[in-house]
């Protein structure tokens, strides 16, 4: 059902955990639906220097979280905002169709984390 890459990121997820000194935090999803993603980012000079996640959800949701944090690290904020559901799915060698929407929350959670960072900067 899942690609080898999804299984790898699900079984050995990268960047798991809370980030107490995060510069931006984004949460997407609802446990009633079955998937919730919380993404933490650390930002320096408009660049994401570190990213972590906590996820409640299925295999696909955990793999997507792992992948989005891997991709975001080292990106500028503008680059990070260009990550989409389809670019994430592509990076994971595809996701089953029924998982494309409800479990593929990584791009939205990351975008919220970037927005959270920007809002904090304005204050």
């Amino acid at each position, binding site marked *: 059902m*899942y690609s080898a890459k999804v*299984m790898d990121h*699900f*079984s050995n*997820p990268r960047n*798991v*955990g809370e980030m107490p000194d995060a510069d931006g935090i984004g*949460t997407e*999803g*609802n*446990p*009633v*639906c*079955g*998937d*919730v993603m*919380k993404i933490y980012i650390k930002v320096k000079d408009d660049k994401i220097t570190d990213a972590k996640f*906590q*996820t*409640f*959800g*299925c*295999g*696909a*949701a*955990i793999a997507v979280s792992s992948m989005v944090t891997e991709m975001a690290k080292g990106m500028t904020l503008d680059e990070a905002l260009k990550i989409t559901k389809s670019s994430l799915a592509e990076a994971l060698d595809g996701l089953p169709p*029924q*998982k494309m*929407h*409800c*479990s593929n929350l990584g791009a939205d959670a990351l975008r919220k984390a970037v927005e959270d960072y920007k809002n904090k900067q304005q204050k």
Partner: protein
Amino acid sequence: MNIYLDHVATNPLHPEVLEAMMPYFREHYGNPLSLYEPGMKAREAIETARAATASLINAKPKEIVFTASGAESNNFAVKGIAYANQNKGKHVIVSKIEHHSVLNTARFLEKQGFAVTYLPVDKYGTVNPADIEKAITKETILISVIHASPEIGTIQPIEEIGRIARQKGVIFHTDAVASVGNIPVDVQSLNADLVSFTAHQFYGPKGAAALYVKEGVRIVPLVYGGIQEGGRRAGTENVPAIVGMGRAAELAKRDLKKRVDHVRALRDKIIDCALKIDKALLTGHPEKRLPGHASFVVEYIEGEAMLLLLAAKGIYSASGSACSSKALKASPVLISIGIPAHVAQGSVVFTLGETITEDDITYFTEIFPAVISRLREISPYAKGWEGTEGPTCTAQK
């Protein structure tokens, strides 16, 4: 190490069953309706299987109609009785925790102009017989209540429901797919008029199942054609599968007590292990449940992820979570017993069979808590459900 703990999904074929079936693929390939020797051999084999299958549930051979699946038996029972009795009334009673093959058939009947009452269950998933009594009207022609739930293991008070149905003169069907071959089932003491069951739940082949139809109960066929199964189900019989069901029924009858004792002892170890875990809850009735059935909801994590991590360690299980279902909906059974939708996501079901060993369960008790800890490390809710949104899911599906 592979440990198959999904026996409610299906079971491997018993080697003796396969042995019994083989000649009916190779030598005795005749059509049971043919009048010459190979046909007679096939017909005799079907009748021997019918007697063995009937004996497993204490029925008469002529009360057994062979079908191809538990779902077909359920469809046949519900539609066949509704159509046979629609001039007496058009009201059907089912429970909310029926299998889809009963629930979706009931919904189909609603579209055909029947009225259906869906009875609630308590927190253990048990139907209250008093509710049945109250729901019966003079229009009621059929009551259908599942014997044992494949999802939460709960065994219903079928004898009492059957007694009420009989007193009121209403035909009573029970879907006994998860129970026949796994616990003693006697159609006489259950007071049932129709009973669905399937061979692959007791080490028989897939593609062979049966509907018990009590002598004298009139039923409309699903499939018209020839005179097979007394005209109640047309179509050339699946002789090898029927022979397999008969042999599996003999073995189930002979070994039932041994099987029950074996799986119950090991099942209890799984329950003990799981209930030591914080925020892991047994679903279904603690005592009145299938002996080989252990089902839980584990809070703060999701079932499909649990199932996949367990499978990576060679343990095969099931889940009623939304993500693990193709329909992306949490199990209606878990919702019916009052489990909140976000907690139902943590559903996991283990069902045992006769080949599971003590060593398998020792291994399980090492792996299962570790899998839960691992997923809770990843979960944002490891410390509780705080910040959890309302009960509606708005995600695009």
